[in-house]
């Protein structure tokens, strides 16, 4: 395993009490593999990634338990300056909002070159040449001329490519992409996802893709971890999940998106709303919205049951859900 997160817990202190944003999350990703972390807002999918990356805002956040084992070391035990060396060089992150992630007063070429001068100690000239090479690699046309331009002179899709180029610059072993295409139009999203998949293949990196888009997941992921209210409710190879989900929440999500290829069925919406994290319902957090819920769900928190060797579901009635 390239990265293994074990029983990670993150809390936020708020006026309303303690919010368990991440409540015992475990997942792993291999080199060359794409893991999709699927969830709605408030599910804890981004907070988990921030904790893994070591960019969680502390306070208000606090890591209260768990391990993040990356290439054999527990990152949570490293000192901040050792941690910083891992960031960027060994694992990199791509954000949703490329415009605010780029420095508006530096040309994109300079920003890319900085990665090489700072981390690799290259001369400015060499770094600049590498920057242009990178822009070429993420298929930015006329890279040499455009390296001198500023972020606002690029379109949304092109900016996201520059973000990808920055993430790739030091050839990390793992990339975490947090909603990388959510702000983009479909045709541009297709370009960017295609590029990411291609580069991942070429460089043999691991990729964690954080998203709420079931379509994107089906397109690129090998494995899925579905998150709800700070916990993983289902974890499985992508084909299994779409064929027959083993958790009612996953099923609900799949049923509630309209499909381009299946017209006319009424959308089976999940009733209700995701819970407030300071007041997660006892037992299974999903029970107030779940069609399968019974008494045991209100009292006993389901563990991640083993459905098969590669698959887990945190539902007491996963068998029923599978057969459904």
């Amino acid at each position, binding site marked *: 395993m390239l990265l293994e997160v074990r029983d990670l817990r993150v809390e*936020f*202190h*708020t*006026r*309303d009490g303690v*919010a368990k*944003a991440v409540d015992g999350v475990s997942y792993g990703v291999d080199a060359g593999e794409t893991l999709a972390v699927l969830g*709605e*807002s*408030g*599910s*804890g*999918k*981004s*907070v988990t990634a*921030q904790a893994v990356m070591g960019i969680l*805002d502390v306070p*208000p*956040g606090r890591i209260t338990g768990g391990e993040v084992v990356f290439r054999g070391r527990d990152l949570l035990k490293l000192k901040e300056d050792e941690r910083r060396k891992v960031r960027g060089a060994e694992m990199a992150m791509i954000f*949703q909002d490329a415009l605010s992630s780029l420095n508006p007063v530096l040309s994109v070429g300079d920003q890319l070159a900085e990665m090489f001068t700072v981390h690799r100690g290259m001369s400015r000239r060499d770094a600049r040449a590498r920057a242009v090479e990178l822009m070429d690699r993420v298929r930015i046309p006329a890279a040499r001329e455009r390296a001198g331009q500023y972020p606002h002179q690029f379109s949304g899709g092109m900016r996201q490519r520059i973000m990808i180029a920055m993430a790739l610059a030091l050839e990390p072993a793992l990339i975490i992409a*947090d*909603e990388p295409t*959510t*702000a983009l139009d479909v045709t541009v999203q297709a370009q960017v996802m295609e590029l990411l998949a291609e580069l991942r293949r070429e460089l043999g990196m691991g990729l964690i893709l*954080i998203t*709420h888009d079931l379509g994107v997941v089906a397109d690129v992921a090998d494995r899925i971890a579905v998150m709800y209210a700070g916990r993983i409710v289902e974890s499985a190879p992508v084909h299994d999940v779409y064929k027959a989900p083993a958790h009612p929440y996953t099923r609900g999500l799949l049923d509630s998106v309209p499909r381009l290829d299946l017209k006319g069925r009424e959308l089976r*919406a999940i*009733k*209700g*709303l*995701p*819970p*407030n*994290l*300071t*007041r997660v*319902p006892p037992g299974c957090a999903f029970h*107030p919205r779940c069609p399968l819920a019974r008494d045991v769900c209100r009292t006993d928190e389901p563990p991640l049951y083993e459905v098969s060797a590669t698959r887990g579901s945190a539902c007491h009635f996963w068998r029923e859900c599978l057969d459904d």
Partner: protein
Amino acid sequence: MPEQHYEPEPALAGAAAGGAVDLDVVEARTPERRPQGPDGSGPRGKPRSLWSDAWRDLRRNPVFLVSALVILFLVLISLWPSAITSGSPLTCDLSKAQEGSRAGHPFGFDGQGCDVYTRTVYGARTSVAVGVLATLGVAVLGSVLGALAGFLGGAWDSVLSRVTDVFFAIPVVLGGLVLLSVVTSDTVWPVIGFIVLLGWPQISRIARSAVITARQNDYVQAARALGASRSRLVLRHIAPNAVAPVIVVATIALGTYIALEATLSYLGVGLKPPSVSWGIDISAASPYIRNAPHALLWPSGALAVTVLAFIMLGDAVRDALDPKLR
């Protein structure tokens, strides 16, 4: 009725907010301040508005409580100064000039032999009057002009904004020295008029941008699409949402206007004797600072506390009305 859900509000906006674009922003912020009843009351509890929310915040804020008490005290003594002093600020006895404190005259006497305590108490009246009236004038003139510029836009906006710039360019003290030196009236009105004349651009700018921000909100568009009249748009939708920043800036400005009045009076162009003002007293006492420091200290201290109280009040109100501004 299909798919209704009346649960005891499992999640308020916090957890369920967001969506495609601001998904993880919201997620990251989930644990922060979120609209939820103070006691976790669901939607069936008491309705709350921005003002009641703000009031709840303010009541718990010691800065607010202290400054509000000071201001309340100032307002009371300027309305009824005779409640705490029996003397008259204009009854002076030269023979007691520069004498220190004694029974019945806790602050001693100034260079003219007037009771410093009585004069300081009566000075509050001037300061509060100038501060409140000037702020009212500035707020009314500034918000009307600023709101007009923001709401009408186009050429109106260009012209009004240029006029604002012109007034902004006038140095306050220099302007006061020039303009007020030709006035002979011994009332507070020339000073108030002067402060309004130079103060309105500050509020006007705030009001303009607040109106522009409010105007762009979808709910204003929604009301327009319903066919709402202009006056309804302004009174019901734009003004209530633009008024908060104006109130905040005006409260802070009130303190600075009091200081400005004292400055102008000190320089001899603001209020003139026989008016009673802290500025006049400070000016009169400063030559005798060695012999009678108390005559300088008390009015200066009162001025400092008053200005500070208003600025702190403004700060507290701003924090309560808009936590994002912090």
